């Protein structure tokens, strides 16, 4: 590890790996920084170590990530693993916490590939032990070959929920029920996007195969449910919801030891915000994302973004965006002239468009249900500081025009996650309560330290 690189790529998921691979091939002096011990990000988490039955359970799409990892290991790029990025600023000084000591490295150019996180799904009891994200369940499977024991319920909406169910079924895990919160009206809203989605029919077939596996295993699936709650005293005991039958609603209560929640993923904007990148609200995806051009250029001169942090695109598209960003960086560093860059980009862009053709359909179909974007007053929104939706609404009524003011009034977003788990909800609640456009309401600022760090670690001792 050197003190300075021409290019630092942050995040070793598909976008970061592809960017580092291509940049290295183009003669750029590049290092890839990642928090994990093995490359792959969350989507290809631990892929280089997966073998035997586990790789069968996780499937071909997951194992495909190993190609990127192998290519990276054979590349000239440096790999700075196990490194928490606790500091980042607009000068692109990166403070890394590695094995209990902090070190600063700098770069001429940076590609941020910080990926996605799960969209917060605030509902009564979502903070109770026994409730976790579907992504967490999948990470436990990928990184530790662990599966839930006891009564498992999957709830929410989106492709990951179906994929996880299919993977669990392959691994012989019993699922008590799948509770689908997708509103009935979504299919009609998604239909205009369907013809274009046929351009990525392989994705649609995969979705159908997950649904088929769930039907074949006779897992009870409750559709279009409302009022989803996680109930229990000290921990989760039951998943409760209501199912509409015509005009009547039936209350359901399913005993559960583990509830895995999911309502899609949203860009992880924490590092781009720390680097000073502008965000914009994506109406189709109902989330904040980093503003970027087709190369991935952000509003900050030396910072590119690739993959899901610039809007959710999925693993394959993220990889292609990483390659485009690498081309642009190589061009900026005079390793390529613009003609060479454009020639190389033509075929990448063609494939990218194919993978993106699915998005309008999927984004509309699995848009989050209003109840979990605008939760009831007594639902906890900020898990760190334990602030309810009612307290955010009250702050908005008192005149808080945005999340940063609401933070000062209520402490929401002031905890260690710095708003990762409440930020989208807080912006949405304030916009709804005040009638302002969400673009004007804005988002939380992010400040270092981005990760917990002790004074001893800071001083490097």
């Amino acid at each position, binding site marked *: 590890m050197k003190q300075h690189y021409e290019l630092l790529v942050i995040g070793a998921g598909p976008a970061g790996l592809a960017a580092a691979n291509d940049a290295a091939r183009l003669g750029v002096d590049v290092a890839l920084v990642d928090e994990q011990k093995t490359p792959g990000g969350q989507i290809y988490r631990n892929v280089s170590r997966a073998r035997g039955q586990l790789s069968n359970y996780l499937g071909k799409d997951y194992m495909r990530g190993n190609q990127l990892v192998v290519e990276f290991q054979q590349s000239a790029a440096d790999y700075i693993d196990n490194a928490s990025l606790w500091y980042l600023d607009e000068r692109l000084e990166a403070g890394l916490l590695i094995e209990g000591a902090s070190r600063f490295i700098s770069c001429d150019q940076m590609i941020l590939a910080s990926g996605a996180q799960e969209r917060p799904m605030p509902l009564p009891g979502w903070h109770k*032990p*026994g409730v976790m*994200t579907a992504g967490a369940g999948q990470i436990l499977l990928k*990184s530790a070959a662990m599966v839930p024991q006891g009564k498992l319920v999957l709830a929410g909406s989106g492709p990951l929920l179906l994929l996880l169910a299919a993977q669990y079924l392959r691994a*012989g895990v019993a699922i008590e029920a799948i509770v689908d919160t997708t509103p009935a009206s979504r299919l009609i809203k998604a239909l205009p996007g369907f013809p274009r989605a046929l351009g990525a029919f392989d994705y649609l077939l995969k979705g159908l195969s997950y649904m088929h596996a769930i039907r074949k295993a006779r897992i009870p699936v409750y559709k279009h449910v409302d009022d989803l709650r996680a109930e229990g005293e*000290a921990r989760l005991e039951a998943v409760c919801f209501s199912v509409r039958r015509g005009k009547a609603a039936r209350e359901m209560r399913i005993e559960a030891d583990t509830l895995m929640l999911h309502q899609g993923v949203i860009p992880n904007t924490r590092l781009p915000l720390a680097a000073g990148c502008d965000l914009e609200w994506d109406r189709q995806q109902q989330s904040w994302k980093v503003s970027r051009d087709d190369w991935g250029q952000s509003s900050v001169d030396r910072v590119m973004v690739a993959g899901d942090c610039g809007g959710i695109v999925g693993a394959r598209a993220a990889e292609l965006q990483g390659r485009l960003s690498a081309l642009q960086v190589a061009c900026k560093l005079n390793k390529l002239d613009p003609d060479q860059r454009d020639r190389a980009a033509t075929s990448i862009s063609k494939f990218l468009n194919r993978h993106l053709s699915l998005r309008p359909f999927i984004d509309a179909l699995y848009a989050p249900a209003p109840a979990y974007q605008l939760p009831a007053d007594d639902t906890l929104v900020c898990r760190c*500081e334990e602030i309810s939706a009612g307290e955010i609404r009250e702050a908005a009524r008192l005149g808080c025009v945005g999340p940063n003011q609401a933070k000062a009034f209520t402490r929401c977003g002031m905890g260690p996650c710095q708003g990762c788990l409440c930020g989208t909800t807080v912006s949405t609640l304030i916009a709804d309560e005040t009638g302002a456009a969400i673009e004007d309401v804005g988002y939380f600022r992010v400040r270092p330290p981005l990760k917990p760090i002790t004074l001893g670690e800071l001083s490097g001792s």
Partner: protein
Amino acid sequence: MFRRIEDSGSDTVTLWIDKREFQVPAGISVAAAVLLCGFDKVRNTPVSGSPRLPYCMMGICFDCLMCIDGVPNQQACQLEVRQNMTIEYQRGAAELPQPE
């Protein structure tokens, strides 16, 4: 409550969680180990004291903060288990160690 799937045999390491000894597979995260050993919480929150378990497993939510080898506020999902690691619940906000 979690279990390992079959054929996932590997080396093990010894951990001390809440002063009790456990053998867990090498290479997994502390948060995974705590879940595997069947613990019902990793911490109590500083605000209301409510119990929490790991939620996102990817370093985003900070719900898995624990006191590991005597250092509080460690993200258990981001740390790999090591031989003879001591892992304790975090009760409320972290306390500064008292000078001896």
